[in-house]
């Protein structure tokens, strides 16, 4: 029985890490109603910038600030060059634009910082400790804690502040938001900057687990079922979705995998999310779409 709980806990901890990536998607979706295809590339760009500057011998905190500034500049450029010309365009147009941003960022990050794989040591201990006969990773506990704090802060920020309300208005209708005096461009810059911050935190935590390398862009594969389950517009939904996906995929791999050839971790969450969609298309915490005829 303790093995079952060990698998479940490790899955839940992994799930929080998935939530962190999913969060970046949620932020952009809330502001523009668009799935940001470039979120994975932003994670790569942020982590590569951070680790490359760190390897030049810069101070950790200075590197952190400079990388955050880089993400802010990136947000401004994306707003000016990509989003502003597309105001009030169909969502599919904005989605296609984020695909373009994604390819650009992948190439730009590698051209700027090189293709080498980098190790990243954040000083978080990565040794397991024993708890009631189970081996729990210290790194996973710390990473989950950090992710939890970030998610809770952002949930509060977007539900209790004027910016949060403005953001919801923008997501609902660009044109109407502009009419009532909400500065659309500023909101977009803020949201993309916050998504950049989330990308940096995700990049650092995932980068210290996997190494900072191109494969960081692939962590978005883990975030998509979380979004489907938790809802594209809910910050708490991202964390609950992450926990469910993380726990279920690990249990499925261990207890179902051996009967179907194993390695089901990649497709099981998608199948699970798809079944969930049949019952609740808007996700656990997503806003129910009501349209007047």
């Amino acid at each position: 029985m303790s093995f079952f709980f060990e698998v479940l806990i490790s899955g839940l901890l992994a799930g929080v890490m998935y939530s962190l990536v999913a969060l970046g998607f949620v932020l952009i979706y809330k502001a523009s109603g668009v799935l940001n295809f470039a979120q994975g590339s932003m994670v790569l760009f942020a982590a590569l910038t951070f680790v490359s500057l760190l390897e030049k011998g810069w101070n950790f905190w200075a590197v952190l600030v400079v990388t955050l500034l880089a993400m802010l500049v990136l947000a401004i450029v994306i707003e000016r060059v990509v989003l502003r010309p597309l105001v009030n365009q169909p969502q599919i147009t904005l989605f296609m634009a984020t695909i373009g941003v994604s390819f650009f960022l992948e190439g730009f990050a590698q051209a700027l910082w090189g293709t080498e794989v980098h190790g990243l040591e954040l000083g978080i201990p990565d040794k397991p400790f024993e708890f009631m006969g189970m081996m729990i990773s210290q790194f996973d506990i710390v990473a989950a804690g950090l992710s939890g704090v970030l998610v809770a802060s952002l949930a509060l920020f977007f539900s209790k502040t004027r910016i949060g309300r403005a953001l919801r208005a923008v997501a609902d209708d660009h044109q109407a938001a502009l009419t009532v005096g909400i500065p659309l461009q500023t909101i977009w810059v803020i949201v993309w900057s916050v998504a950049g911050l989330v990308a940096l935190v995700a990049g650092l935590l995932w980068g210290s687990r996997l190494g900072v390398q191109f494969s960081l862009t692939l962590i978005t594969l883990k975030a998509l079922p979380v979004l489907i389950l938790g809802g594209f517009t809910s910050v708490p939904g991202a964390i609950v979705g992450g926990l469910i996906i993380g726990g279920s995929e690990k249990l499925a791999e261990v207890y179902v995998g051996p009967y179907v050839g194993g390695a089901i971790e990649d497709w099981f969450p998608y199948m699970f999310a798809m079944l969930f969609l049949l019952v609740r298309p808007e996700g656990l915490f997503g806003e129910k779409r009501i349209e007047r005829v």
Partner: protein
Amino acid sequence: MKNNLLISAIAGILSVGSVVSNAAEEQFVPIPIYRTGPYAAGGAAVFGGFMDYMAMLNARDGGINGVKLTWEECETAYKPDRGIECYERMKDHPPTGAAMFNFLNTPMTYAAMERTDKDKIPIVSIGYGRADSADGRVFPYVFPLATTYWNQTTTKIKFIGAKEGGMDKLKGKKIAHVYHDSGFGKETIPVLEALAKKHGFTVQHYPVAHPGLEQKAVWLQVRQQAPDWVILRGWGVMNPTALKESKRIGFPTDHIVGVWWSGSEEDVIPAGDAAKGFITAAFHPGGKEFGVIKDVEKFVYEKGNGAVDKKIIGSIYYNRGIIHGILNTEAIRSAQEHFGKKALTGEQVRWGLEHLTIDEAMLKKLGAEGFLSTMKTTCEDHEGSGKVRFQQWDGTKWNSVSDWITPDYELTRPMVEASAMQYAKEKGVTPRDCSKEK
């Protein structure tokens, strides 16, 4: 990196220009590189070493017997469809077409095999590709030089046997096989099963879903099995993740033996301390102390040229590129001995690949003693009966921890032949009669 790209671009333009001006004296070698995408670090370094070796031959010797080597890059991003596009674009490159293709990509190699056979251009797959293509009777245009994955696997078991105090000590041992869930990863399962039967150990297989970002569930199962050794058949990001997870379950790293695609600096640096003690198979060492590497530094980098950042010279991937350079160009040299000292067609280079002898004297002449195992290809044996050694990561560099180990050809050759014949039957290929070609 930007400088490297610029240098490569200029080199490419110059090489194309020289083809036009002096076509008859030049041999074209295509470079289907991947400088972008998830495996860019490996693609840029291996192909970089390959191009540097050819540049060194041009600068030092004026090419091969007076025939200059030219090359052109085509970016594949490790995608098979783009690899095929590159193949079609470069196969008829003047003056004599592509000498051979090195895809450095198993799926691409599989995808191109029937085309290259038809176009009479050899594929050289050094340390990768399908194992049964070692049977030259069925696969006349494929050359899995060094050793195949199957033979490499037999040397892993020999290495583990030696560590346990003898092959007889393997009886009753438990081995966990953690593999990338792909054609590459699954390829060695039949050989491991055959070895388990032969030596009396048990083997449990654990597939890891691509790309291998999350492996907790797999390693928790490994811990439950409590194996004596783990054989890791990883690729890309799966490797550092596996090492970190193995440490979390408390498995001793020096009892994990990886494939040689787990054995580069890029595979272990991201894992930090978790990689210390990790052992992998290898068909060449890292380091810059070899004459051949010194010549590349002298004739290429000291003149301000070169395809990679200088700091990666001597890395595992870079040295693998040098090996690619040596084997491909020596095959051209071998073919020139037969067809004359001129630019050759792919079909003629194929002959050279099939009559390639790398012996101790040649290794000495090449400045590659200890850098590469001896090998000799024949019509039947496109692998060349190479050998394998093992290396261990000490936290900063790979150190050799074994001598060259001869694979268990007695076990694998019948399996290679059976699998090749099955392929021939499925594809309607009539195997060559090698006795008539001698």
